[in-house]
């Protein structure tokens, strides 16, 4: 589903690239760089989150290195790691080929929300990232999920986040319709998404997300991303003040 989202997101960005005076070629290459950095970043954060288990079973590396490494590399990804890694790689691309980084970020941000929305539907279909057990008509029970507990009604937090991402994509598109100063669209995304993600994390009950002092890794990253969003959103005013 995320692959489908990625394809739609790419087409979507390519269609919108003329609005930002960015060549389609550059948009595609920036997206490919972002995808590469995103995969690396998402995997690194996944390994950090699961470090305790990786360290605990380190002996397996010598007993059966193929199986051990395959389990590490094929285990999963963390969205926030992908977001950070992707942003770093896109920055490197923009710096190398002298393209406005904020312009590219503004162009690509709605596509990230779109792709993420599809990705969460994929989570629901696989049964991962599941919500807390609930009674009544709100809960959905999985019957043959390899990840989620079967036959227990769980809150469909994946679908809620998916719907929210699609709505966020629409909001960003409407906001970007008017000529905004650079960084505002990306800033708005980083102002809204971390807040909602922080709250939705309380509705999740999958335990393998990494916790520090009772709050999950994603919630900690959300706290750090919020001021970055604020700085991006007010970048033009901050620049003016600094001058």
């Amino acid at each position, binding site marked *: *589903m*995320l*692959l489908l989202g990625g394809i739609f997101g790419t087409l979507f960005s390519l269609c919108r690239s003329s609005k930002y005076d960015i060549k389609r070629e550059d948009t595609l*290459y920036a997206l*490919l*760089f972002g*995808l*590469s950095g995103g*995969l*690396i970043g998402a995997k690194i*954060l*996944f390994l950090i*989150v*699961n470090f305790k*288990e*990786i360290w*605990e*079973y380190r002996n*397996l590396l010598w*007993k*059966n290195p*193929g*199986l*051990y*490494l*395959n*389990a*590490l*590399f*094929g*285990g*999963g*990804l*963390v*969205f926030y790691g992908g977001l950070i890694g992707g942003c770093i790689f896109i920055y490197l*691309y923009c710096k190398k*080929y002298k393209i406005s980084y904020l312009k590219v970020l503004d162009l690509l941000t709605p596509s990230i929300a779109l792709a*993420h929305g599809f*990705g*969460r539907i*994929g*989570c629901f279909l*696989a049964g*991962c*990232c*599941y919500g807390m057990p609930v009674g009544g008509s709100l809960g959905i029970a999985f019957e043959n999920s*390899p*990840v989620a507990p079967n036959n227990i009604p769980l809150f469909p937090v994946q679908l809620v986040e998916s719907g929210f991402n699609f709505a966020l994509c629409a909001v960003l598109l409407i906001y970007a319709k008017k000529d905004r100063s650079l960084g505002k669209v990306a800033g708005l995304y980083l102002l809204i998404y971390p807040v909602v993600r922080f709250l939705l994390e309380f509705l999740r009950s*999958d*335990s*393998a*997300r*990494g916790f520090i002092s009772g709050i999950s890794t994603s919630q900690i990253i959300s706290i750090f991303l919020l001021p970055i969003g604020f700085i991006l959103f007010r970048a033009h005013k901050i620049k003016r003040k600094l001058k």
Partner: protein
Amino acid sequence: MDENLQTNETPSQNNNNLAVVGLVLGIVACVFIFIPLIGYIGTLCGIGGIVVSVMARKQGASGMATAGLVLSIIATAFTFIFFLACVACAAAGAGILSNLPY
């Protein structure tokens, strides 16, 4: 005159080298991605292939760089299908090592 020739040759030679590296990485990625247990090598080569091929194309190389780029994209796309049960979160990693048969 000789100096001019040398300075004209260096960038195109560089493009060609990058394009070749990108193509090789793309081919290696496409081969490894289908091999069980070491498929992640294909993913790494695919990512490297994308970066190198894009750089080659930006410097003016076409044919080989495009082929490398397409192969690398295909290999990286297959990564999503083959390896990542859950691609938007870490939840699928629950017990990634504790569940292994050893």
